[in-house]
């Protein structure tokens, strides 16, 4: 039985849902802006679960009032990295919070082969586990069928 029947990387919010449309993305951004979050756009072609920090596209977008500005940066990022994973992050700068409040994937490669779970038998009967993406054998920038 497949544990993840959609075969898609599920990280952050909405990742079990069908892909958000641009209108839905901008509604989410609008919601974040209303709560005073600063948005930023991140991309990677190594979506390993432990790869917490992706590359940021440009600078974090502080002091924005409208989703159109964030959407412009996202459009630019999609143009540069069409087959990368791209996610939106909302940073809550409230004193004492100062962390990511929202995060969701907005762009995926066309084919996501998923992860291999490697089992290693060690001393006694103990097992060591490690996950490895099927796509990450290729060097950075050439994964997921990128040109």
């Amino acid at each position, binding site marked *: 039985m497949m544990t993840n029947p959609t075969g898609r990387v599920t990280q952050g919010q909405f990742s079990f849902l069908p892909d958000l449309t*641009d*209108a839905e993305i*901008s509604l989410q951004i*609008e919601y974040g802006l209303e709560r005073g979050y600063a948005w930023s756009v991140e991309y990677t072609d190594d979506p390993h679960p432990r790869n917490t920090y992706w590359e940021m596209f*440009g*600078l974090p*977008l502080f*002091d*924005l*009032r*409208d*989703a*159109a*500005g*964030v959407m*412009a*940066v996202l459009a630019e990022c999609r143009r540069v990295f069409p087959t990368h994973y791209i996610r939106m992050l909302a940073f809550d700068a409230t004193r004492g919070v100062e962390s990511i409040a929202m995060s969701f994937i907005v762009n995926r490669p066309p084919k996501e082969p998923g992860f291999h779970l490697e089992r290693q038998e060690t001393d006694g009967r103990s097992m060591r586990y490690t996950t490895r993406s099927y796509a990450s054998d290729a060097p950075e920038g050439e994964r997921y069928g990128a040109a």
Partner: protein
Amino acid sequence: MSYSLPGFIAAAGKGGPDAAAETAAAAPARSVADVLAESMVEAVLDDIDRELIGLAPVKQRIRDIAALLVIDKLRANQGLAAQAPSLHMCFTGNPGTGKTTVAMRMAEILHRLGYVRKGHLVAVTRDDLVGQYIGHTAPKTREVLNKAMGGVLFIDEAYYLYRPENERDYGQEAIEILLQVMENQRDDLVVILAGYKDRMDTFFASNPGLSSRIAHHLDFPDYAHGELLAIGDRMLADMSYRFGEGARATFGEYLTRRLERPHFANARSVRNALDRMRLRQASRLFADRERALTREDLCTIEAADIRASRVFGGGPT
């Protein structure tokens, strides 16, 4: 894309002739009165009339623009082909004639009519748009534009963007990005350029692309003597001061003399003059240490505070 327009809160029970329109909230507005009531834009227009002194031609133009936008809205409701109107503007006039103030009100009007989504004003100058080295300008300009999305971008002294004497100046790059956004993201932001009349004209002559994308040119006239005096009255009242015995007449005389001098910046000069008078009033009161000061004393600008000004050929300032 669908956005909620906060300005479009239906005016509560006005009991006008169009009671039917209120019951059917979804029905699109058919009359000018409906749009005005829905958008509450008339309150802003009245505010402009009441709170801004003088500027009659500007006020008329603002009313004309508002009328055009309201009619466009009605046309759209009828399904008539209506391209998003170009709303970029140019405000020309001498310093202190109220360009920034009017721009703020304009943002409010556009917001209430639903032509910009947020209605904030981002005021910038050349320094905020143009970078210091190669590759610095584009991200800087984009950042400012992103901040202004959903509102109004006000570029003060816009002619400094273009420096013909230096062909490697990065200003041209900023202008190109600006043009691109003004054309392609018309419904996301409105750009208002401001500056002196003659220098703006030269600027437009050398950047025809920019001039052709600006639909509305508003010229701000200088204030007359009486208007400046009225502005002074209002500023003083806002700061909770008042003129003492004969001080208002002295202030009028001050303005007459000040108008003849160079670098007169209209309302801004009035504000600065009032600030200096407050300074002199404070030192006058400060000098008298033992005296118990009443509320009246603290509020009153005396004629002597004005007389001490340099334009009377007397004191040092």
